[in-house]
C-alpha cells in the first residue's frame, strides 16, 4: 500500500531579483546570512532577503519562535496553519515545504492529499476542518473570522494558548507567502 501514499514533491526556489553575492556582501549582510569561513553556502532565499539584513534578522528570529517554540500547539498543527495560508496565497513553494513537514510530523498524508486534490473546502475530520476553516478565513479576509470558528476550536479541546499559537502560525505565513510568492518562484529540485 505504501506505493499509493500521496506525496508532495520537494521544490526549490528561484528569485526574480539578483540575490546578494557572498563574495561582495557587506559586513551586516554577511552577519545576517551567518557566513563564516566554514559556511559559505547560503540559499538563494536567504541571499535575496539579505538585501535588507535588518528586517531579515528580526523576522527570522520571530519566524523560528512561532514555528518551533516548545510547548503550546502541536508542531504538526502549526505546519497545518502554514499550509492553509500558503494554499490561500497560492505560494506553491511554501505549500510544498510545509505540506511535507506536516506529513512528517503527523503522518497524515490523507489531509494533504485532500487539500491538494479538492482544496481547503474538501472533507476533513471535524477538528482538522475547524483548524483549516479558521486559518483560511484569517488568511483571506482577517476581519471575517467569527466567534463560531474559534468556538469550534475550543470545542475540539484546543486551549486559548494553543489558539494563540495557531493565529501566529497562519499570520506569519501571511508574511512569508508575501515574500516567497512575490519575489520568486518554485522550480524543480536539481537532482544532480
Amino acid at each position, binding site marked *: 500500500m505504501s506505493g499509493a501514499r500521496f506525496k508532495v514533491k520537494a521544490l526549490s526556489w528561484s528569485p*526574480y*531579483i*539578483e540575490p546578494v553575492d557572498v563574495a561582495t556582501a557587506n559586513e*551586516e549582510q554577511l552577519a545576517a546570512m551567518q557566513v563564516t569561513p566554514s559556511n559559505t553556502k547560503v540559499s538563494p532565499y536567504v541571499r*535575496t*532577503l539579505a*538585501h*535588507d539584513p*535588518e*528586517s*531579515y*534578522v*528580526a*523576522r527570522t*528570529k*520571530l519566524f523560528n*519562535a*512561532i514555528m518551533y*517554540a516548545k510547548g*503550546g500547539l502541536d508542531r504538526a498543527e502549526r505546519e497545518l496553519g502554514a499550509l492553509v495560508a500558503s494554499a*490561500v*496565497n*497560492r*505560494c506553491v513553494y511554501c505549500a510544498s515545504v510545509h505540506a511535507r513537514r506536516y506529513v512528517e510530523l503527523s503522518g497524515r498524508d490523507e489531509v494533504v492529499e485532500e487539500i491538494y486534490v479538492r482544496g481547503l473546502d474538501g472533507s476533513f475530520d471535524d477538528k482538522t476542518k475547524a483548524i483549516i476553516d479558521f486559518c483560511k478565513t*484569517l*488568511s483571506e*479576509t*482577517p*476581519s471575517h*473570522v*467569527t*466567534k463560531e*470558528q*474559534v*468556538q469550534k476550536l*475550543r470545542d475540539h479541546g484546543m486551549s*486559548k*494558548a494553543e*489558539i*494563540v*499559537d*495557531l*493565529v*501566529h502560525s*497562519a*499570520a*506569519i505565513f*501571511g*508574511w*512569508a*507567502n*508575501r*515574500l516567497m*510568492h*512575490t*519575489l520568486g*518562484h518554485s522550480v524543480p529540485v536539481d537532482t544532480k
Partner: protein
Amino acid sequence: MDQIDHLSGIAPDTELYRIRRERPDFVDGTELCRQTVLTPAHGFDLDHALRAALAVRMARFIGREDLARTYDGMLANAGATPLFSGIAAGSEPGVEADGFLRAILRHADLVTKTPRNNTRADIEALEAAGLSNPQIIALSELIAFVNYEARVIAGLEILGEVE
C-alpha cells in the same frame, strides 16, 4: 501593553494578556520587526513617513481602521505631507506622485489584496521604476509585516470574545 494588546482589546488583567506573555519571543519579536520595517536604521531612502503612509493605506485595505489610525499617528510624527496623506487615505496617486512612488503604491496594493496573482512582471515593474534590490526587499518586508500584524490582531481579538 503594546500595540497588539491595544488593538486586540487585551487588558493587562486578562487571561489572554498572560498567555501572550508566555510567548515573549512572539511579543518582543513582533515589536522588533515593526521597528525594522517602519523605522529602520537603514531605510534605503524609503523614509519613515512613506513607510507609515503605506502602512495606513494597507491597514485600511485589510479592514483594520484602528490599525490604520495608529499608523496615521506615526505618519503625523514623521511629517505628513499632502502627498503622503493621500497615500494614507487610499487615494489614487495624484499628479504630484512620480513613477517611483506610483510603482510602490501599485505593488503595496497588489501584494496586500491579491498576493496570489503576483508574477515576475510585478517585480520587473518595480525595477523599471528605479527601485534598487534593497528597496524591493525593504518594501516587500513592510507590506508583508502589516499583513501579518493585521491577522494577529484579528485573531487575538476574536479569541478574546470566546470563553
